[in-house]
């Protein structure tokens, strides 16, 4: 057997799922429901979001604990409907691009759910349940704004009325973790898993970008078995993307780039298009980041 054929056979045996961010995005299509992992400005799959912005995919329904992922996609007009509990940059409370888009023309349309409702909606999808009951939403305007939301009454003696959060089934999930192997197992090394495993389990296809692709046996030296958050049976593609969460945090590989974030907010407030930063490929992006850093010094 030639070396090339041997390699191809090995890849089949190990189900090598590595691909580029652009290849991952090429498998998505307009109109899909896409879940984006992380939380606010923490461990967002920004390299995948940037690839989405380079594509012509639009009319998305996005499910996210929102940060700059939502801000940039909203600024580019790619989101038809946003399902979220908040959009924030954490160190700056309001996401300026998202805010500007909503105040300009009310787009994206908003399905506002409570943080817990979002969690139980994803959990229901992961468990293939039509809904899960939750004590949240009643008495608030979340119900009135979402006329499709239904309540259920406990069949037991308490008879409590609860909100039946429908399963938030995703066509695709995009998440970013610290390490992944080529088969799609992925490891987080920071203090919080956020909901990245749930996003992957709630999705028909999940794309995992990572700071570094490693051999499976390297996981054990980096963290305990409980750090192995995402398993390969849920994962379609693995994308090695160093700095792939920038400018959000990816602890312990790096923290949030506060200087870059401040420049991002200043630019947005002065009406600057984020496309300047995001029209190129990853190399262009990293060059722009380096230039911004030199400018700040």
């Amino acid at each position, binding site marked *: 057997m030639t070396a090339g054929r041997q390699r191809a056979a090995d890849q089949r045996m190990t189900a090598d799922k590595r691909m580029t961010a652009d290849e991952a995005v090429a498998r998505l299509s307009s109109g899909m429901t896409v879940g984006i992992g992380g939380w606010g400005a923490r461990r967002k799959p920004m390299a995948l979001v940037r690839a989405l912005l380079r594509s012509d995919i639009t009319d998305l329904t996005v499910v996210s604990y*929102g940060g700059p992922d939502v801000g940039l996609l909203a600024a580019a007009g790619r989101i038809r409907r946003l399902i979220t*509990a908040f959009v*924030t940059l954490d160190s700056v409370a309001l996401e300026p691009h998202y805010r500007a888009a909503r105040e300009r023309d009310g787009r994206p349309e908003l399905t506002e759910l*409570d*943080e817990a409702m979002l969690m139980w909606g994803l959990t229901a999808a992961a468990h293939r349940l039509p809904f899960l009951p*939750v004590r*949240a939403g009643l008495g608030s305007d*979340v119900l009135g704004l979402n006329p499709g939301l239904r309540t259920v009454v406990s069949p037991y003696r308490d008879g409590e009325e609860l909100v039946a959060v429908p399963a938030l089934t995703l066509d695709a999930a995009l998440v970013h973790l610290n390490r992944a192997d080529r088969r799609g197992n992925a490891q987080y090394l920071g*203090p*919080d898993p956020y909901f990245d495993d749930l996003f992957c389990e709630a999705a028909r296809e999940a794309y995992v970008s990572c700071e570094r692709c490693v051999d499976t046996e390297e996981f054990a030296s980096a963290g305990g078995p409980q750090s192995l958050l995402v398993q390969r049976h849920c994962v379609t593609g693995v994308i090695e993307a160093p700095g792939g969460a920038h400018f959000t945090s990816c602890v312990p590989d790096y923290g949030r780039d506060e200087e870059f974030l401040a420049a991002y907010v200043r630019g947005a407030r002065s009406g600057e298009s984020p496309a300047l930063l995001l029209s190129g490929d990853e190399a262009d992006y990293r060059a722009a980041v380096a230039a911004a850093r030199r400018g700040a010094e």
Partner: protein
Amino acid sequence: MSRAEVCVVACAEAWRGDGEILASPMGVIPALGARLARLTFAPQLLLTDGESLLVGADGAVEGWLPYRRHLALAMGGRRHVMMGAAQLDRHGNQNISRIGDVRRPARQLLGVRGAPVNTLNNTVSYWIPRHTPRVLVERVDMVCGVGYGRGPAVDIRRVVTDLAVLDFATPDRTIRVRSLHPGVTAERVRAATGFPLDIPGDVPVTREPTEAELRLIREVLDPEGLREREVTG
């Protein structure tokens, strides 16, 4: 003694008697208040590092509370959160989502966050660093945090502002002034509130920090004086 320091103590007082539960402060002054409470009269309180770790008074990590467990803890009820409010009405309905219509808001704010689940499952207080008629309003543009009289049972303990401490200890569960901060007149609070507010002539003055509390605030908890940026005067 600054107004900010009075507010730190007023926030701390919200957690008095809560026992072994999680204190979840949002904002600089509530965070200082929660830590002050634990260092003094509420030593059993659990506190996070602002991220996903539970830390003891000495800074030692004593637990793990990532967002999924934090939400589960809120639903379990063993928590008292002090949230902010872009708008708050006399029934305790709170808005942090937007100003104006959902279809095209005049100001898009944060979103509902966890306010609906918080208000139905654990004790809630509010921190309002600028008490104005635009915040204390007749009607909120969106009910995020649920107030009294909308059906579900809620427990809203305190509303601490830069001018006064308010609560809902009235027969019809509408807001009242519990105390005025030192130097603040009833007239000023009335003028800063967007709905009629009955303030009895004998309303108490918010208690001032003790010497020991002032020392903790100034030397241990906030030597950089971040509190003075949140409330001036």
